[in-house]
């Protein structure tokens, strides 16, 4: 898939981009993966909350949406951005998530060593979001919309380290935040990709 097989960037291009069959398949596949991970991400968030103890999960308990270095929530303006820009932002977020999810898993392995399911789902999430990010990068490249230059080392690693050093409660809240961001970005990616899926 070296030659660009369709371009999102070309202003003259027909808005309904005519895509080659295997690129369309790749987009469908990536979209399906995003759809699947959106469901998993919701389950992970619920499962995570259940293992942190009250008041997590109780109505009225809404810890602040802490800033996470290298990964912010999708901006309200995200939906208004051009599709390529949105997909690039999605890809950047997906790239930042694995080290964060790993840090959350490591902390949960200390706090909830007898919750192997939660730990396994956190591990799966990091792997799956890495795969989704890679797939999205491939689609972007094929569409000639990839981000220019190498992606900077996700500073999220700094937050991951901070998560390890933080007290238990801030670490629980940060974990909740990361799981929330994971759900938001995967769901956002699914939405953005759906506009690429013919008939989507």
């Amino acid at each position: 898939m070296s030659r660009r097989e369709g371009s999102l960037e070309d202003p003259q291009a027909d808005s309904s981009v005519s895509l080659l069959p295997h690129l369309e398949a790749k987009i469908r596949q990536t979209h399906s993966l995003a759809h699947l991970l959106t469901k998993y991400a919701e389950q992970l968030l619920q499962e995570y909350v259940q293992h942190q103890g009250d008041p997590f999960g109780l109505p009225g308990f809404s810890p602040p949406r802490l800033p996470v270095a290298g990964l912010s929530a999708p901006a309200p303006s995200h939906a208004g951005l051009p599709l390529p820009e949105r997909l690039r932002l999605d890809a950047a977020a997906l790239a930042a998530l694995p080290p964060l999810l790993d840090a959350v898993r490591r902390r949960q392995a200390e706090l909830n060593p007898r919750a192997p399911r939660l730990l396994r789902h956190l591990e799966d999430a990091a792997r799956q979001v890495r795969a989704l990010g890679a797939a999205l990068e491939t689609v972007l490249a094929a569409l000639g919309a990839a981000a220019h230059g190498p992606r900077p080392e996700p500073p999220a690693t700094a937050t991951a380290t901070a998560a390890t050093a933080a007290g238990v409660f801030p670490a629980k809240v940060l974990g909740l935040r990361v799981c929330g961001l994971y759900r938001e970005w995967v769901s956002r990616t699914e939405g953005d990709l759906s506009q690429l899926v013919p008939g989507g």
Partner: protein
Amino acid sequence: KETPYDLKCTTNNLQKWDCSWKAPSGASRGTLYEFCIDDRSHSCYHLARTNIEIPALSPGDHEITISLQDAGSSTSKFILNEKNISLIPDTPEILNLSADFSTSTLHVKWNDKGSVFPRHSNVIWEIKILWKKSMELVKLVTHNTTLNGKDTVHHWSWVSDLPLECAIHYVGIRCYVDNLLFSGHKEWSDWSPLKNISWTPDSQPKVFPQDKVILVGSNITFCCVSQEKVLSAQIGSTYCPLIHLDGENVAIKVHNISVSENSGTNVVFMIEDNVCGTVVFAGYPPDTPKKLNCETHDLKEIICSWDPGRSTGLVGPRNTSYKLFEGFSGKYVRFKKVDVSANESYHQLLLQMVPNQEIYNFTLYARNPLGRSESTILVNITEKVYPYTPTSLKVKDINSTAVILSWHLPGSFGKINLLCQIEINKINSVQESRNVTIKGVENSSYRIAVGKLNPYTVYTFRICCSTETFWKWSKWSNKKQHLTTEAIPS
């Protein structure tokens, strides 16, 4: 009054008396006085003030004469006796006040200045702890020491209920010298200047203590150090009344805390569109390990197992760690429970046998952040052999009524005898079992002849072993079927 009056003497070290009197009316500032003590040396002092420090006088009455110089008959006489003297020790001074915030412990250090006292004396120190800017008294405690003629530095520590970060803490100290030989009046010294400890808050609200591990049933105070108003606080899902400290700092008291979940019990303070919190881990110290048993399968490796007893409620880094120590050899091996082990009640440790050592004196130490316990067991390991399952059972004919059974049984049994059970099954016949004693070997290969069989008959053999000093039978080997040869026609 026309003559000096109201003579009072005190002492702060039993060696010197500080005496002072009131000047007669009309005496000017520069008036000169003569102060005389009616003792053997009839010592007199001339001075231009109304106080004097004299060596402590011996027990009994002493006549003191105070007269104004150049003023004719302006003289007063006093009877001075140790009984009228007040022993008021010097105001003590706190050398150092430090804090261990992680344990909410204050450490106080002071010097008792024992060198100024001639004789051994009992001293009662009173230490007061105040907190908050309003200096509320929170603790008053006495501490007894003995003056021994030299300056001695004393240490005293106190654990605050309230985390030290939550409010400024002040400490003061005073003393009372209870010298039994001193017949005068004894009084407390003045309080020392207060020393204080405070924590420098940063911009973010913070809750203390952080991630503490405590005993189930404890009472504990949490606090939130905040610049903004705290709206509410809860432990788990239970709301708690706020105790207001300095500024916007607040505290809550939790009584008789119950055991925490694995990830700990959350303590949360709600601030305007913000939340801050901590986690507390309420659990138990390790139970005394039960059913401690040490045995070996092969006289090479010793396996000690035990039942940890009651769950501590603590997991992960706060989990119980075990150390198995062998007293004769000094060897030890550690064990950190792997939490995912489904079987909560079975723990095991392996230790290599010490060459030529049969008797083992094991102590199993259990330890977690809340305490420790231990169990011991003394074993002669040769009497605790639980052999592996015999394998590679083979049957070889000797003749039509006898066979050789051979099998493999791992273990260094060269110095002991084995006891094995051979189960012989003949179709449609009663099962037969034979016990045989076999010399143990180092190379794990065993063979034995089994006779009194019927020719041309299908037998099923299986075997299990233990040691002559019986401990446990091994599991049965696999069964081995064999057809004996036909008898040679006679």
